[in-house]
């Protein structure tokens, strides 16, 4: 898609959806309740589904409608349902010992967005497309990557780590819709299915953690060192 010559309405819709998903990632960073993580993740997935459909419409990629539908179904409904089942099985509703306060995490998240912006700006400049949707997409892709890693490191509940990984994936998927909308549909569908399998595996492992380690906090996973 020649993103450089987008009409202004399309560009603003794309930007709105992309920024909204980034904000939802911040909701996850700022909360300590597992339920909020889940809602934010589901919301983010719906934003991405809408974005796919919009890119399909404005960019002329009809196969993206299918991707949008599958994204909404898998990422928006099925994954949150699987995660909800995991939450129900656990007896924790929130992070108890924070490694980093939510407020400090938010600041760190903001810093990572700025870093992502600088990197994307330079890349955009070297491609000669600075200051449009491309730079925004790249920024959000990298920023969500960093936020996902932040969640993985600053949170220790098993579930937060799963959601951290899903944020990593969401960021990539979101960026991919804008940067490479023409990517072969087969690959995108396989990646979607792959995510389902990943979360199913995580569900089984969480059950093992409860049964054999007696805790789902990574702070208690301290037997193997050295």
């Amino acid at each position: 898609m020649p993103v450089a010559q987008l009409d202004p309405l399309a560009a603003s819709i794309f930007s709105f959806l992309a920024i909204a998903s980034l904000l939802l990632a911040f909701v996850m960073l700022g909360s300590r309740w597992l339920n909020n993580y889940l809602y934010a993740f589901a919301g983010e997935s719906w934003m991405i589904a809408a974005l796919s459909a919009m890119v399909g419409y404005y960019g002329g990629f009809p196969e993206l409608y299918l991707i949008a539908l599958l994204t909404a179904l898998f990422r928006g409904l099925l994954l949150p349902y699987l995660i909800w089942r995991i939450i129900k099985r656990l007896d924790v509703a929130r992070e108890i010992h924070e490694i980093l306060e939510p407020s400090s995490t938010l600041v760190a998240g903001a810093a990572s967005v700025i870093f992502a912006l600088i990197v994307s700006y330079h890349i955009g400049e070297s491609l000669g497309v600075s200051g449009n949707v491309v730079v925004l997409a790249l920024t959000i892709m990298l920023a969500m990557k960093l936020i996902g890693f932040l969640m993985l490191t600053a949170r220790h509940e098993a579930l937060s780590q799963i959601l951290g990984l899903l944020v990593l994936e969401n960021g990539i998927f979101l960026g991919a819709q804008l940067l490479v909308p023409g990517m072969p549909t087969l690959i995108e569908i396989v990646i979607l299915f792959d995510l389902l399998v990943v979360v199913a595996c995580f569900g089984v492992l969480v059950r093992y953690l409860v049964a054999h380690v007696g805790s789902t906090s990574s702070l208690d996973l301290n037997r193997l060192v050295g």
Partner: protein
Amino acid sequence: MPGTLLLILLLAPALAVVACLLVRATRAGEIVNLLASIVVFAAAVALVIASAYGPRHYLADYVVVDMTGAWVILCTGVVYLLASIHSIGYMRLVGEDARLWIFYALFSGFTFTILLSAVMNNAGLYWIAIELTTLVSTFLVGFERGAESIEAAWKYIIIISAGISLALLGTILFYWCGSFVLGPTYQMTWDTLRAAAPKMNPALASLSFLLILVGYGTKVGLAPMHTWLPDAHSESPAPISAMLSGALLNSAMLGIVRYLPVVQGAQNERLARETLVAFGVVSLVVGALFIVRQRGIKRLMAYSSVEHMGVVALGFGFGGPLGVAGALYHMLNHSLNKSLMFFGAGNVMRSYGSKEIRDIRGVWTRFPVAGALWLAGAVGITGAPPFGLFLSELVILRAGFERGYAWSVYATALLLIVIFIGFLNHFRSMYFEADATPNAAAPAISRWCVAPMWLALAPLVVFGLWWPDALWDHFVAAAQALGTAP
């Protein structure tokens, strides 16, 4: 002909999975898995020979058999065969007999995913195959269901998934690089990427490659992304440790190797190679430090894998026919030698009932034959003659001099000496210090557990003394196919 071989190669483990799931019996699982591994090994050898006649593409270009891929398949086939033999004896000692059919189903499934990743011609599908190897092997790592195994499995899947998501980002960015040249929709095969490389934006290509390198590097176990490796390798059953170390790590290295010519075409060769060399040296440093002060016997082997993957990374990083030949040769030798080491460690661990080096004393008296094999393997794994790894390390170091990386050659040589002393010091204490509690109640180690050690050691000695000309030609051709100019 290669098509049929490939079909046999992939069908054998796939059918083994189905058979295990249908029959649900442990003894049947053992036999089915062993048969599958024999078939895979035979097909892998034939495939390496067939691959010399140029790359073949199948299934609308989604599948490729090339020399480097076939070589990784051979390493996998070798370890699969050895580990299947070992697991028959070893897994009966674990005391999970009723669930063992699940183990064998997962085991052949794991092999299937590794083999699959080696023949994927599409960068996106390769990523998915690597992801599948993680998902299947997690349950093998946690198979023993102890608190430690589950901890290792959890850390394994979290760290690898996070790492590999970086590789996905790199893959997407590479696709984006290519879309400026090839248009919005194209098949992202290794050949198209390489053809498009000269017109790619160098800055974006470097960023993508670095993401790929860190992503797949996590899976390869390059330091400082290696943190999952000692846990997973030490907590999984011994045959699986051998598979992780000897087969899985190579299959992830293949991804990095396949992207190297692309970034080379995009005028960024120096940056890519230097980063890879730096990761290699850091892996050696981390390996050396943790080997010297190690307390767990299987963790010792695991850090040795970090070290050897560092050496392979150096080989590919240096490049040139010498570097690539050394790295490929090193892969096979490492697969053989590390399998031998993990089998020995597993046997000893079961016999002494402890994973701690300090509890293992007087190996020599308890295992006169298997102990001798294990000690020979220890000498081999530290890179001493007359074993295969000595020869391949020497070639890689020579390549370093030839390609102008003298600093890293000196550092590597020094670190290899440190590792040699540290590693063999542990073996000295295990072999020559008196057994404090000689207990007779230790479970007997069956022939199934010792036979694969013989089978691994024999080719190692042969490869150490004699590097067949045919292999050398094969490696040089592989290096040319990877686009490294002589």
